[in-house]
């Protein structure tokens, strides 16, 4: 069981501590990478909740050692369609 349970991504069950760990131990500081490494924003919500949540906490999450690497890391990841999951059967017709 996870020791800390501050969940930031409810679709894929990712905690805030996992995000912090990735930023500091694996030196992945851009949201596009954090998304793909932890699957934050890759669940059914498409990032509508989790990515915004992480974005708001971002300056604090980055801390001293990775701060000032430029504004590019702050790019919000691309949202892939569909906006809302739809059954595959709808495309068969």
């Amino acid at each position, binding site marked *: 069981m996870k020791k800390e349970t501050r969940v930031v991504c409810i679709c894929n069950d990712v905690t805030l501590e996992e995000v912090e760990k990735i930023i500091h131990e*694996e*030196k*992945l500081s*851009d949201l*596009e*990478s954090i998304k*793909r*490494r932890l*699957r934050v924003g*890759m*669940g*059914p919500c*498409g990032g509508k909740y989790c990515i915004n949540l992480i974005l708001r906490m971002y300056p604090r999450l980055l801390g001293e050692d990775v701060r000032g690497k*430029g504004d*590019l*890391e702050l790019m919000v990841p691309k949202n*892939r*369609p*569909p906006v809302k*999951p*739809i*059954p*595959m*059967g709808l*495309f*068969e*017709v």
Partner: protein
Amino acid sequence: MEAEVVIVGAGSTGLFTALYLTELGLEDIILVERSYIGSGSSGRCAGGIRASFSSKEHIVLMSESIKLWRELTEKFPEIGFRQKGYLWLLTREEQIDTSKNLVAFQNTLGVPTRIVSREGIEDIVPSIDLSDIIAGIYDPIAGKVYPFDVLYSLAHILRENGVEILTHTNVEEIVVSNRRAVAVRTSRGRIKVKGHLIVAAGVWSRNLLRAIGIDLPMEAEVHHILVTEEVRQFLDPLIIHVDTGAYMVQDPIGGVLMGVNIEDSYEDKLRADFLRKVARIWLKYFPQLRKVNLLRYWIGYYEVTPDHHPVIGSVPEYDNILVATGFSGHGFMMGPIVGLELSRMIIGREPYFKETKKLTIDRFARGELIEEKAVIG
């Protein structure tokens, strides 16, 4: 900034090359990536890995690549290669004859593919509705990975070893002088090349090379792919509908990836006809997926050469530039063997395989093309 080896592109090719260089004790490496790691074609692929091709070059090199995928997974479990096979589904009689020849050829090169009956298909994929499928080809040594697990674990291993990976840094120009690449000019400054420069930038390689007088006959083809929401594991192999070239594979998380080639797909735009085509093909054989939700749809590029084979190795115009691109849809799976061979070339040794030597860029000028027919998706 400066490095012994500068690699343009942090995708499968660049990362595996850096990994094998570090195994040779060379760690003064900088990878320069225009966006995030794997943002080109590597992170957009379905993660299928196979040696069941139609050309000797692909079969030999991919057989070796599969050995390396297994070896790497033993060493770094997070790479996660799962040898679950490929199953090619045949729907027309004439496909069986062609397949028998192909299987016989693959068998002579050590790839143990075999023709399977309808019943044999049901044993491998019990959840399938056979419908018009009359037989199949099963490739038991093929397999699959989750691309981002591979890419990010490689990046982590490399960074732990002191390799620098600069993301969101665009290489704007290769600076050349006296038959040598001396530096790359990037959006974040100049990086001096002390030893070799490796161009492994997928479709973006062509313009970079053209600017220094290297003409690479390579086109970017847009390919479409989707993934469903997570469902219980029901599909071991990657399956291919031979008639249409459509494929389907279940990732380790449970999502089902599907792709098929569509007509006139040159622009990077999403297309409703892709969704219709891929759904019509696969829901016929897996009606239980009708109620499963589509989660994401994206596009990626195949960087396609005239003979569907990559360009690997040195270029006649320069002494310290190595190129590895043009994989025509197979770059991710070839990553380990290409990385191993490039690392050999960097230290001035011959590549391990004569098939690698046949893939140099000058084959186009000499007219010595190699053909690959088994291109899917």
